[in-house]
């Protein structure tokens, strides 16, 4: 990580990560449809170049924060697909022991500080990591992902303003996929581009083609450097598109299938990058197929892993409410042990 995509290997690796995200979410889509994955899932297909372009520009020590749409960011930041999928299955071997699921993934070792499905909450979380970086004179920085809809939320405004005022080493990456649930951009905003907001904070606002992994990577590298140089935050608006509904199951009355197909066919980040690498003579069809085959094998293993992983123990539901135990929680845990499945009966 923290690389320019300046060698064929690195470019192929970026391509592979995009393919991995795509394939991971294909499995999530199908296994959710089968009722094998519980809860709510939000796929990021179509947006892979943002996740990969940003995270290839980061070091392992840099933190990211993410949203309800976190699979791509997580994989790009280095989380293992098997444990991530196990988390989506609610299994003990998942990144959060099954406690979090698709909407709440974190792995601090990999610099994934957490997915936050409360819209906007990823942003103060990232600003807070920036405080730590600044006060400890660290050589890492923080990146907060959020969506085009989230910038209407007050906490996003507060957190960007705070980061700008304190010149924290944070980059705000707004993935503008043009929709928030079923609402289109101009139902929420009176500007053309989210990047215009940056002027309210006196910080650079960059617009980048979110379907172009190279462009995203370059914009992000520059912003990261500014952050680490003490020049404060940058707001990056990545123009992108999600192929699937807001959540799996969304009937999408708000847009046409043609619109989706048009993006898929003409602006797919994987296809385009593949073609670019092929045109540059860096990727043969066979090489691409090899990537695909390898990724498919990884995902087949991940599905096996997730399926066969253990259910978390019911009584582990009482863990991690606090670091230091509280008698209330202890009492509930004990009663459960005494008397089976037990929703609680007073204290």
């Amino acid at each position, binding site marked *: 990580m923290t690389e320019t995509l300046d060698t064929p290997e690195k470019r192929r690796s970026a391509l592979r990560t995009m393919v991995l995200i795509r394939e991971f979410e294909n499995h999530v889509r199908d296994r959710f449809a089968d009722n094998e994955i*519980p*809860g*709510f899932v939000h796929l990021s297909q179509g947006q892979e170049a943002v996740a990969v372009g940003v995270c290839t520009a980061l070091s392992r020590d840099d933190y990211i924060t993410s949203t309800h749409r976190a699979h791509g960011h997580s994989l790009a930041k280095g989380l293992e697909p098997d444990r991530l999928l196990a988390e989506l299955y*609610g*299994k003990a071997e998942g990144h*959060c*022991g*099954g*406690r*979090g*699921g698709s*909407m*709440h993934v974190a792995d601090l070792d990999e610099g994934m500080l957490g997915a*936050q*499905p*409360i*819209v*906007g909450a990823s942003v103060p979380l990232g600003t807070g990591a920036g405080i730590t970086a600044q006060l400890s004179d660290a050589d890492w920085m923080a990146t907060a992902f959020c969506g085009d*809809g*989230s910038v*209407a*939320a*007050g*906490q996003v405004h507060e957190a960007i303003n705070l980061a700008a005022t304190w010149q924290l080493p944070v980059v705000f990456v707004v993935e503008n996929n043009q929709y*928030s*649930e*079923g*609402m289109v951009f101009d*139902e*929420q*905003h009176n500007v053309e581009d989210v990047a215009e907001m940056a002027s309210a904070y006196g910080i650079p606002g960059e617009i980048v083609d979110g379907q172009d992994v190279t462009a995203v990577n370059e914009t992000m590298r520059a912003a990261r450097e500014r952050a680490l140089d003490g020049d404060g935050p940058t707001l990056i608006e990545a123009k992108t598109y999600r192929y699937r509904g807001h959540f799996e199951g969304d009937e999408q*009355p*708000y847009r046409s299938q043609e619109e989706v197909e048009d993006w898929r066919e003409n602006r797919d980040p994987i296809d385009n990058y593949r073609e670019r690498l092929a045109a540059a003579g860096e990727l043969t069809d066979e090489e691409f197929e090899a990537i695909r085959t390898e990724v498919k094998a990884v995902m087949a293993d991940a599905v096996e892993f997730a399926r066969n992983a253990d*259910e*978390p*123990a*019911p*009584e*582990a*539901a*009482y863990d991690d*409410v606090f670091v230091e135990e*509280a008698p*209330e*929680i202890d009492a*509930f845990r004990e009663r*459960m042990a005494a*008397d089976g*499945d*037990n*929703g*609680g*009966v*007073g*204290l």
Partner: protein
Amino acid sequence: MSAETADRETETLSMREAIRAALREELLADDDVFIMGQDEEDGGSFEVTAGLHDEFGFDRVRNTPISEAAQIGSGVGAAATGLRPVVNLSFADFIGVCFDQVMNQAGKTRYMFGGASEVPLTIRAIEGAGLNAAAQHSGTVHTLVAHLPGVKAVAPGTPAAAMGLMKSAVRSNDPVVFFENKTIYERHGDVPTGDDFTVPLGEASIEQAGEDVTVVATQRLLGESIAAARDVDASVEVIDPRSLYPLDTDTLADSLRKTGRLVVADESPLSYGLHAEIVTRVVENAFWSIDAPVQRVGVPDTPIPFAPSQEDEVVPDADDVRRAIQRTV
């Protein structure tokens, strides 16, 4: 069967249909009523308002940005200047984002301005666990709101209550937060037809009469409690408080005077939860009638976990209510 449906013609509706029908009636009856919320034009979360935008148009049913504070705060402003906004907050877990507007604006505006304004605002909030939606989309937060001065709170457990209370909420000149449990939208029940059926704020409903034990149960746990009552060797009175504030202490205390035994089943976290207020009101009003330790059934102070096995562990069901009943007899 509650008092309201006893001697009236009824039709069978789901909770979802009952709420939608109530909102539709109010939109038809009063031009000042309008609905706003995220994705509301497509029916909002859980499709409760599906079709209303098509029928009433943008002025009456509209999408908002993801700005809960502005939604509720501007709702207060619109209410104070003459409209009757119904704001859909969607998941009740999001109430934190606009809690100031609920607590300090909706709840206190009339009081602190010496009665200068009224705030006829209705807030819809969707609660409850059971869909593996994890810690931030499964909460039950109605106790927080019931504790706020100047705010009324209702949490119906039947379609009749949902229909009748929604109409009362929209018509009320006070701010009312209307809590809907997301797992019982398909619960069906009899709802009186005709005659502009309403349920007043502040009246509990004896859903099943009994002699030995009183179970006060809300929302999803109302159904679970009725099921649990079938499995015990005691005559169980099941009461849906329906309105959390005002709370119908008389109906609860009267029941205790008869049964002497109390179980409170509600999906709030147990500590400082709704249960404690019900226990305390009963203790204050029927102290000498209580024959056995009271029982609370709720969530054991944890956030709601994602994993189904863990969610099942912390979220109470009929079995938990049954065991609680058995401990009292």
